[in-house]
């Protein structure tokens, strides 16, 4: 039980009343005010003490979800914990707070680092007597990362906030973890990159991205065919329902690489730019995965590992989410070396490779050259997401960029990659820029 400042103030007020009444020899009815303050304190104390009586809370981990189209409001992974609250007492409870102490996991699973403790609170609006509630805990306000639950408690207070009572909750034996992955763009979840914008057939209809299938031709509709594959032009011409037919082209996987280079320029690797880049990476993964195309991820920051990002039922794999959550721009070795290490001894083609980077170093060009020389189809998203006032960008549509960026773009193009520049224009919010880039990456004009 904790006495708040407000309660202390009320005690002082009650004492002042008493002093005033005694010193002035006031009538007995003035003492009502003293006892009113005392009564308020006593009533609030009683309510605070009873606020946790009969209240229990059990924390559980839900089935981990990734990004699922249409499942959620917003564009983040659905909450991974849930709380079951019960009030077996006879008093209704309001204003309870569920407090978590989360420790952020660092590289290698280490957690004991300064400033890695996060305290988050959930307000339980009301818990009537006899009620049981099970509520998902939306933890997407946390910064990207992996968190372990160190402690949890319930905090109750009275209606005036004079006293606070708290109760520790019993944690599960297996420590609860929450993985907070980067945000995915809404476009990645909602848009059908095969059909293109506005339902028109997009360029990808000829060569469906990473599906491992090329358009073979058109045939008559057979019951059971996917109606989205109806070829309307032929149908209108022939008067007979026709569908597109595809054949496998062997290019049935995609690889998304994030280049987490520790840039030589301190101002380049800001937290915001890293988050934006990872947002783009995540959106690519989601967009590809929702088309049921196998996709892998290499987050080449501190880690050098290729992870299959395809999950079940259209959800990203947990390992990929964890990798995205952990990713930090800490690559110090040449990209080609790291890539080779991550890919292992296998030299198989990946179908389509998407490389997201903001590096202006030469090792990026070398790596791209090596990949294109191997016959990989490569799209490089070259990012410059620093704020406008840093880059002195001019009017939209015409940007004045540092020469190093333009040079890098040219070099990459000459290396054989398709380059999509991701530039933060004047007054443009980052999500708009990223969505435009995503569209350009997946549906080149």
């Amino acid at each position, binding site marked *: 039980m904790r006495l708040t400042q407000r309660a202390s103030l009320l005690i002082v007020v009650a004492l002042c009343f008493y002093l005033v009444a005694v010193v*002035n020899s006031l*009538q*007995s009815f003035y003492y009502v005010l003293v006892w*009113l303050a005392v009564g308020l304190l006593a009533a609030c104390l009683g309510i605070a003490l009873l606020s946790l009586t009969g209240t229990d809370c059990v924390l559980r981990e839900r089935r981990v979800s990734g990004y699922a189209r249409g499942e959620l409001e917003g564009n983040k992974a659905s909450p991974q914990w849930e709380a079951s609250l019960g009030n077996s007492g006879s008093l209704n409870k309001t204003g309870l707070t569920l407090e978590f102490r989360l420790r952020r996991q660092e590289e290698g699973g280490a957690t004991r680092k300064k400033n890695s403790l996060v305290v988050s*609170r959930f307000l339980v609006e009301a818990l009537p007597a006899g009620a049981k509630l099970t509520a998902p805990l939306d933890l997407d306000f946390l910064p990207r990362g992996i968190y372990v639950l160190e402690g949890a408690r319930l905090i109750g207070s009275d209606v*005036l906030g004079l006293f606070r009572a708290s109760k520790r909750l019993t944690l599960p034996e297996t420590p609860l973890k929450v993985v907070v992955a980067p945000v995915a763009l809404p476009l990645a979840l909602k848009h059908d990159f095969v059909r293109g914008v506005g339902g028109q057939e997009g360029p990808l209809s000829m060569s469906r991205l990473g599906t491992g299938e090329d358009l073979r031709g058109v045939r008559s509709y057979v019951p059971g065919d996917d109606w989205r594959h109806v070829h309307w032009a032929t149908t209108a011409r022939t008067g007979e329902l026709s569908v597109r037919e595809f054949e496998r082209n062997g290019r049935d996987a995609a690889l998304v690489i994030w280049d987490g280079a520790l840039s030589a320029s301190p101002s380049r690797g800001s937290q915001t730019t890293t988050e934006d880049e990872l947002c783009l990476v995540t959106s690519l993964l989601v967009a590809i995965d929702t088309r049921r195309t196998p996709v892998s991820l290499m987050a080449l920051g501190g880690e050098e590992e290729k992870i299959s990002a395809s999950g079940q039922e259209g959800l990203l794999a947990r390992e990929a989410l964890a990798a995205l959550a952990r990713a930090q721009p800490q690559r110090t070795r040449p990209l080609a070396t790291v890539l080779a290490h991550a890919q292992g001894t296998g030299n198989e083609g990946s179908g389509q490779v998407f490389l997201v980077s903001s590096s202006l170093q030469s090792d990026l060009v070398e790596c791209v050259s090596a990949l294109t020389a191997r016959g990989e189809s490569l799209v490089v998203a070259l990012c410059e997401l620093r704020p406008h006032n840093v880059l002195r960008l001019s009017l939209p549509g015409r940007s004045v960029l540092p020469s190093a960026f333009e040079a890098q773009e040219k070099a990459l193009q000459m290396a054989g990659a398709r380059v999509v520049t991701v530039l933060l224009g004047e007054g443009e919010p980052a999500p708009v820029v990223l969505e435009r880039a995503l569209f350009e990456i997946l549906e080149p004009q």
Partner: protein
Amino acid sequence: MPMSTRTERWSVELLFRYICATLVTLIAAAGAQLVVRTDFTVAIAIVSFLGAPVSLYLRLHGMRIAGFSLSRPLWNTFTVVLFFVCAGAWTLISMSDLLSLMLSGGASQSFWLRFGAEGSLALLMQVFLLFAAFRSFALISDKDATLATVPSFSVLLLLIPVHKGIEVVLYFLIWTLAATILFALDHRAELNDGADGRILSPTPGQDVRLAARGLATVMGAALVAAFSLSALLTSRNADDRSATESAITGLVGRLAQFAMSSPDSSLSGGPERQIDFSSGPSLPSRALLWQMRVWIPGSNRVLRPGYFRLFTLARYNGSTWTQAPREQKRVRLANLSPQDWPLQYRFPFGSDSNGNSNSLGFGGLLPSPAPSVNVIPPGITFQPDSAGTPLRQDQLIGRPKDNPVPDSFLGFALRKAWPKMRQNFGTPTLPVRVSIRANTNNVGFIPLLANTRALFLRQGHVDELRTGSDGAVDMGFVAQEQGIRTLADVPIIAEYGVSSAMAPTKKVVGQEQSPQLPPSDRDLYLQLPALSTRARHFAQNVLVKAPEDESNYGHARRLAFAIQQKSTYTLRPPIPPQGREATDFFLFDGNRRGYCTHFASALTVLCRSQGIPARIVSGFAAQEYSSDGTAQLREANAHAWTEVWVDNWGWAPVDATPTTDRGDNAPNIFSYWGDWFGFAFNQIEMWSRSRLWPLGIGFGMLIVGVYVFRRRTRIMAWWARRRGYWSSDELTRRDIIAAYDMASVRLSRLFRPRAPFETPDEWLSAAKDLVLDSPRARLFARHEFEQLTEYYLRALYAPQAPEHSSVAVARELARQVRRNKG
């Protein structure tokens, strides 16, 4: 909380916050109008009313007004500067007299005394009110609204020492309610702001409802605790107080005295110099004014008189008693020492264990308790009359011949200096010494026993005093700790603690030395305004049963007894309407509700109406004695009684106030609040007495209206059936729906009301999941309600209406649900 100027959305909670923030200021202004000018408080209220909507507008529009964006710090500064300017101007205006006097050097001591604490406190209150009013324009954030309670609280706190009326407590109680709501909203906002996420309540708005209920519970519990603790722990009588409370109060008092390092500087003028029935009473405090010790010189016998006199009131105009234009005598002080105190008496006390008086020499012992004290000269045997017949003059010792008051007696030899202040109280008398100590600064009359004939000061700076023929002594300013000694010849009657004897109830035969009332005094003490016939008849009817030889004292006692019948002692009596004679109103239209002055006034008027010279005496009724016999006279012990002239005997005190209520003007909290409620009921009763018919009709219509409203559905159905508007199927459906609605109230209370988006099945299913399996719902007729739900759904949706017999079944199920059977 961050100072945010972002545009906010409208919400009921926001509106409540601003209402409460304005309300606390308005309550403070309403309380302040008890002390400051009403037009000032009205102006404050108007400014506050204007300020709150402006603040709300700015908050909802992100500090933008008419297209201009205001900087919040600048706006706050502007309001504060405006406050300073207005407060400064107002202070100058209020203190212009003081300033001009200060500058001209003409401020006298009396001016400072008059301005003193009350004036400065009132000015400070006005400054705080100005602050609150101007700040109402800058209530932008939640914290601003909560902090609006600070100046209003300060105003009410300052009001306490200035007004000291029960109204202040009421204002505080209402203020506390509004402030508590503000604090609860503040706490709620704090919880919301500190939360990273929310777990929503089972139904929308349930958290608000439960929080409101919690707040009401807290307030209710606090009020109950306040009144019960106050009644238990705060008693009017120091002897009744618990040891804990006495210790705490004593310690706090000493600490406060030490902290202030100054004696109590309050000034008491004692009871009012007039009685005005057209205004309400100013309720006295329990401040200790005087400490009186009365003893018989030459012995250790300490007396406990019931009354100490201050002054008399003789003129009456129907609504006000005032002092007669007094003859006053100035008596000048001479130096005095205690050795000059002239009388050293030692008295024999004559009662053995059988109650027979003994003839004892000097130094006899007083058996305890002594039924009476007989003042017997040495050698005289005296048999006291148990009926209280006054002793004969020659049986008494007033001033033994061998020890008279020396002519050279110094000090205030009042009787000697002022022959008119003669012995006009009942004989026989007993000389007693009185030690008077002023516990606080006093101005005006000092409490005395009857027949005070000598007075001296232990120390002091009084050069002269004034005496009146009625025995009052006005010493002007009496400083705290001033000691006064007096010598009085008190009548040997129970009122003065000397004996259990009474004044004569039979007419006294006149003798040479018998006191007489001069004709001019007789006229004065028989003066009356126009008195109603029924008041005169009332007195006549009472006295018609009196024996022929009964004295005026006996008559007065009869009248006093008659007045006390069906009377109620209250400090909140009804105020007579303008133009009404107070006694007539008190006796016949005011339900005989009043305090001591009402009773004394009524008795005096009735006595005068029957030709009995009478006057009101204002003074103290001693209720509290310390263990050494010192009377503690408090402001609350102020009392008024009647003195009637008994021919050939003198003035006899008669108290018409009921015995238990004499000098009890600071009862405990229960009595106070009981008095308030009694006053309220009495006012309502008096108001409704002349409006019985309209009230009765109105009340009857109200009952009928409530009945009709509760049965409206059935009445409408009956009417529709009679008119043939509804088919029988429709009626069947409606009856089943009505039965379900009645029963669903039970589940609503147990669980929650059905939400608009919920079907009855969903609602019942949710209730089953959450509540119906818990112990709380063990008496709920669950199966009956399930069946009733099925009937309800059929009545609503089935293509064919249920059979008419279903209605009875549904009603029975509903009845069972409501009675918890099953």
